[in-house]
């Protein structure tokens, strides 16, 4: 993930080359964040791009699915990028970074091992900030239709006439 400022007139490639790698995404200047593999990119309007990057990492650490790409986590927390939500989120991220420093790390996102980040999160599990992010992810992440196939879930079948001719009883190992 990479977070990046978006100066006017720069090409995407230039942006990416200037970026500072942070975890799986990189900040590419104010208002812009992208996947390290350039597979996705997202503009931020109210949140600091670095905070968005931290938020995405936090989302993944709360609900880690190794086969689910960062873009889904990014989409899940994108809703916090508003003028109304930003102050509380920035304060929450600041608290998260402070907790990381308290445990001897440079910041949350620069904490290398998931187990260490989870340890930081456990310490703030009861905070409103943590619960807000976790609660929002339950629908924000798992209710994305694009994420369902990664779990094998097929969703509605009415449009194809139901599962009656599409494997409702096709189990073959029982």
């Amino acid at each position: 993930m990479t977070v990046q400022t978006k100066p006017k007139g720069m090409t995407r490639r230039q942006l990416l080359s200037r970026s500072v790698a942070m975890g799986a995404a990189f900040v590419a200047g104010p208002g812009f964040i992208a996947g390290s593999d350039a597979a996705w990119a997202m503009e931020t309007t109210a949140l600091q791009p670095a905070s968005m990057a931290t938020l995405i990492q936090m989302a993944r650490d709360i609900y880690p699915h190794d086969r689910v790409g960062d873009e889904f986590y990014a989409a899940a927390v994108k809703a916090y990028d508003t003028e109304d939500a930003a102050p509380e989120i920035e304060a929450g991220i600041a608290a998260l970074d402070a907790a990381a420093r308290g445990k001897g790390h440079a910041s949350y996102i620069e904490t290398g091992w998931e187990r260490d980040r989870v340890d930081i999160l456990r310490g703030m599990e009861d905070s409103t900030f943590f619960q807000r992010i976790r609660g929002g992810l339950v629908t924000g992440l798992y209710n994305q239709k694009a994420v369902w196939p990664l779990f094998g879930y097929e969703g509605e079948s009415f449009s194809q006439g139901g599962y009656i001719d599409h494997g409702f009883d096709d189990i073959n190992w029982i």
Partner: protein
Amino acid sequence: MVAKYDLNDDTVVVVIGTGAGGGVLANELAQKGVKVVALEAGGRYLPEDYVNDEWDSFGQLAWLDARSTSGDWRVAKDFSGLPAWIVKAVGGTTTHWAGASLRFQAHEFKTKTTYGDVQGANLLDWPIDLAEMEPWYEKAETKLGVTRTGDREGLPGCNNYKVFEAGAKKLGYSEVHTGRMAINSVEYDGRSACQQTGFCFQGCKWGAKWSAAYTDIPRGEATGNLEVRERAHVLKIEHDASGKASGVLYADQDGNQHLQKARIVCVAGNSIESPRLLLNSASSMFPDGLANSSGQVGRNYMRHMTGSVYAVFDKPVRMWRGTTMAGIIQDESRHDPSRGFVGGYELETLALGLPFMAAFLDPGGWGREFTTALDSYENMAGMWIVGEDMPQETNRITLNHDLKDQYGLPAPNVHFDDHPNDKAMRAHAYKQGMAVYDAVGATRTFPTPPYPSTHNLGTNRMAENARDGVVNRWGQTHDIDNLFISDGSQFTTGAAENPTLTIVALAIRQADHIASEMGAGNL
């Protein structure tokens, strides 16, 4: 021609709520030539409107008015503003329901006699028994088209059922089948056969599952005797100087208030709203609320002892394909105190889509313990536990004067503490449920906590004596002759079985009684 009645017409029967109780009652009365105005807080949605997407459908149909919770039940922590999962729509929660339709067992009408004194439980015998209910059950089964009753065949078993059945048989259970379901296994009563689309909880787009929304309601309207006013939210039941119910005050969709006069008022708003309405209708004559001389209005709230067991296997199950509730184990539904509790429970398969599974598998859970379970979603099977819970006087609906609904009326608070009998039964059911899946090679099992209540019962209970309960054997309030309760809040005790068949049977019976009493000039 759909009927249209004047607000000042005081010859009509007003039915509040159009779900399993109210929807059926309204139609049955209309069929008998009785003039009925049914007031329904929700809008009208038909199969073409249903959305086969869990959260979108929830947003479309669920009752989301302000509510609060208290007590030691886990729902109060996990879903503090959503004690119950019920529907606000014409047809009520019969749009959402899964369709499991079971008769009570004989002893479940007589729990005080059968179970004896259970400390802390407010047990009471129903004033009616199974023999009296049998003909009404038969009418209800015919109306709903319940499989495995009459000459109706069972549904075919889906993947989720096959895992469940194999485990059950290995464990030695014998009463295992694809259930008695109000879902057509073949075309019936003008409705199509089940196409195994798997969104029974979101409203059946084929109409294969019975719902009052597209059966009883339009049929009642077709008689020309029933007027259904949708988006009409009843705020208060009014009475005259003699203490008889005289009409109801409701708000239309624009918030304008109207008073509909009535000859008889029947309350069927489900077991949270029905007692709340009686309490919110308090007057100088009835300061504790209508029909509350016993003090039992809102008390003895029951929600069934529930929980779920999900299991992961090393191979795919794909439980979401096919009927949501696709089979049952009935061996544990007997009363057998040697298990360490009174009453019994049923095990019924249940499938949730990925979005609901994420919300309900382990509410509040996070980290890899949680996510590795969802990673195996495709290999998951699931069942729901439904058992008899103990009525307790302190489990109750009260008015929360600190929380107001959109009309400025006190919201209901739902207080619930598990009884030790409920806990012992749940522990037993978790053990058995996990054993079912272990028997067929589960690699991991999950004893999942209860969801917001889908079965809400008992808050205006039926009792022989006026001092013990709110209504008599006909659902007529002991205190006010022309005020009836017509939903699951009448239940004296909850039994192990899913409640709707009994709600429907009682509604058919009540319609018969009301019509004949009206004919005889007694009402």
